[in-house]
């Protein structure tokens, strides 16, 4: 009896200890999430809401701007994430070589971009890719091109700039994960493979990559989420956010416009944000299923 009283006492104090965190989590996380879900069924201008049922979901299907933003976001995702992860893997493999000179320096150099401020680097990219910026001047000087490329005035090139910018910033970040994981791979596996005469590319492809599978899955998931939420670069690098002609408009940017630039339509903005939630959920599930260990 005394013991169960003690146990209950411990349970109570345990709950008391986690209570502050739970309350904060509830107020600042769970309540806003539920509220935004409720909002996504509201229609109306400004602060005058009314319940609209599925009106916002119907609006999604008929909204050409939403379709454009969705296409752009998926384009960024499909092109940028694979490029970045492959690059990160190659860099990590190169810098994992124990005989490489100055690898600390290279690692720092490649990791450094993701420590820089988003705004600072976006402004630098914006000036580099201006019509008379350094990139065009260099390409003209080396006679690679004969006319300046209208980087931020052309729907295609502006996407290229955004993709290069995100890739530049986040490759080093993913590389660090791969490097850390590579150092956990037992060196004796590579030695055994070498003795068996396995060439370098096969050691990379058949030993390193499979051993990194959990980390590759992790980086794919977080990069997917990051790209689906892409906001800062398309907001800051073009002359006006999403320019030219909505070619760099992402879903997050559209949510921002709907809430703060256009006639405020918070309900519809919440609906668009739930599109991102659903997409993140589905893509993450697909990635987990694809990477699942096959049990024999």
């Amino acid at each position: 009896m005394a013991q169960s009283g003690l146990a209950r006492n411990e349970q109570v104090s345990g709950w008391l200890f986690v209570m502050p965190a739970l309350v904060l989590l509830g107020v600042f996380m769970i309540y806003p999430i539920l509220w935004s879900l409720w909002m996504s069924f509201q229609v109306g201008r400004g602060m005058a809401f009314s319940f609209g049922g599925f009106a916002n979901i119907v609006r999604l299907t008929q909204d050409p701007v939403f379709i454009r933003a969705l296409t752009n976001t998926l384009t960024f995702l499909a092109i940028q994430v694979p490029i970045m992860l492959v690059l990160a893997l190659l860099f990590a493999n190169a810098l994992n070589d124990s005989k490489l000179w100055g690898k600390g320096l290279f690692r720092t150099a490649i990791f450094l971009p993701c420590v820089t401020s988003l705004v600072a680097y976006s402004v630098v990219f914006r000036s580099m890719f201006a019509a008379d910026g350094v990139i065009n001047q260099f390409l003209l000087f080396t006679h690679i091109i004969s006319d300046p490329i209208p980087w931020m005035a052309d729907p295609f090139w502006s996407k290229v700039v955004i993709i290069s910018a995100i890739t530049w910033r986040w490759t080093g970040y993913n590389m660090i994960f791969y490097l850390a994981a590579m150092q956990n791979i037992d060196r004796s596996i590579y030695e055994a493979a070498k003795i068996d005469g396995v060439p370098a590319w096969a050691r990379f492809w058949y030993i390193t990559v499979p051993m990194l599978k959990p980390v590759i899955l992790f980086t794919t998931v977080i990069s997917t989420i990051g790209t689906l939420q892409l906001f800062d670069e398309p907001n800051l690098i073009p002359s006006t956010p999403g320019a030219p002609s909505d070619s760099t408009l992402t879903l997050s940017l559209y949510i921002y416009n709907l809430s703060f630039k256009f006639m405020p339509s918070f309900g519809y903005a919440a609906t668009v944000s739930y599109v991102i939630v659903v997409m993140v959920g589905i893509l993450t599930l697909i990635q987990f299923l694809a990477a699942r260990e096959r049990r024999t």
Partner: protein
Amino acid sequence: MTRLSTGWKRAAAVALASVSMFSVTAASAVEITVWCWDPNFNGATMKEAAERYAALHPDVTVNIVDFAKADLETKLQAQLASGTTDGLPDIVLIEDYGAQKYLQSFPGAFEPLNSAVDYSGFAPYKVELATVNGQTYSLPFDSGVTGYFYRSDLLGEAGFTAADLQDITWDKLIEIGKTVKEKTGGILLPIDPNDAGWLRIMMQSAGSWYFNADGSVHIADNPVLKASMETYQRLMAAGISKPVSGWTEYTGSFTSGDTLSTFTGVWMVGTIKANADQSGKWAIAPLPALDGVEGATNASNLGGSSWYVLSSSAEKAEAVDFLAEIWGKDVDFYQKILVNQGALGSLLAAREGDAYKASDDFFGGTPVWQNFSDWLGKIPAVNYGIFTNEADAAVAAQIPNITSGGNIDEIIAAIDAQVRQQVQ
């Protein structure tokens, strides 16, 4: 225990600091906070007004906060939507295109000024655009009356004089641009392909807008919009313009002599005059008119803004009095901001002042302000409605199609579909 007590001390110190911060605000004399967006233009005029008011009321100080215009608008909108009024200023500058959006989506957020200001003394179109249900909420500030600004020296080299630019049409301007390019190689206009400002100018010059007077969408069946787009398409096809990206590149283009002219609002005078070495090399002509459109004029408007008092403000009474006393009456003040900032106010009485009648050597000794005042009276009034941002975004998305010679009817249909989708 020590750690705990330091923690408490720190918390107490923070609490104390915030309390003392509040008490400082409460204890000081009245401070009016103003948000605006251009330290060289509306910020500078506000500063001048504040100095004049402080001379009469030494206990009132005005704190002017500068933002980028887009940042100010989003900050204001987010703050109004949040329902908390702590961070809001006492007076805010709002561009005329957005006035109705704020007034209608946040009822009660702004203070009607009818009892303090005599609106019959202001340009009627400025008063109307800030009026909802018979209440007027703004102290009308600058006008965006448009003109055609050009380098008289460089156009002169190609043989064009001021007389050649009086009351012309856009097609005549295109011809002039081609001749100039042939003779001197100069490029006439900088065009920002992401900015729909040219369309707003052209539309309003013929008394039309994206919306009807009752606020309904007026795009697919709007002959003025179609004529404007066709004009723009001819302009782009003529090879007399240079693409620029963003405001800095745009203004840099014509102030550096890279391009020879631009058509824009009167508020650009300040930017142009900032290049003292170009004095006497500039001139101003009326805006070209649209060809073959009913109601086409040589006058239009781009931008322009007004001051609004927030209802939540603790210093509301002082803010209203400040606006009414200086901005609402002081003719002398308007002469000064006209000369120093090129700010063409909306107070009609100010037009009788000396500065408005003077000629300007920077623009070849012509009476520029008199001209702008004349054009101001000819601007066709339109209803900007509450969805100009949405319509602008829809147009901007189609500008590359217009430029590349796309079918105007199809482009207008796409814009119409998008705007109808967005105005709900």
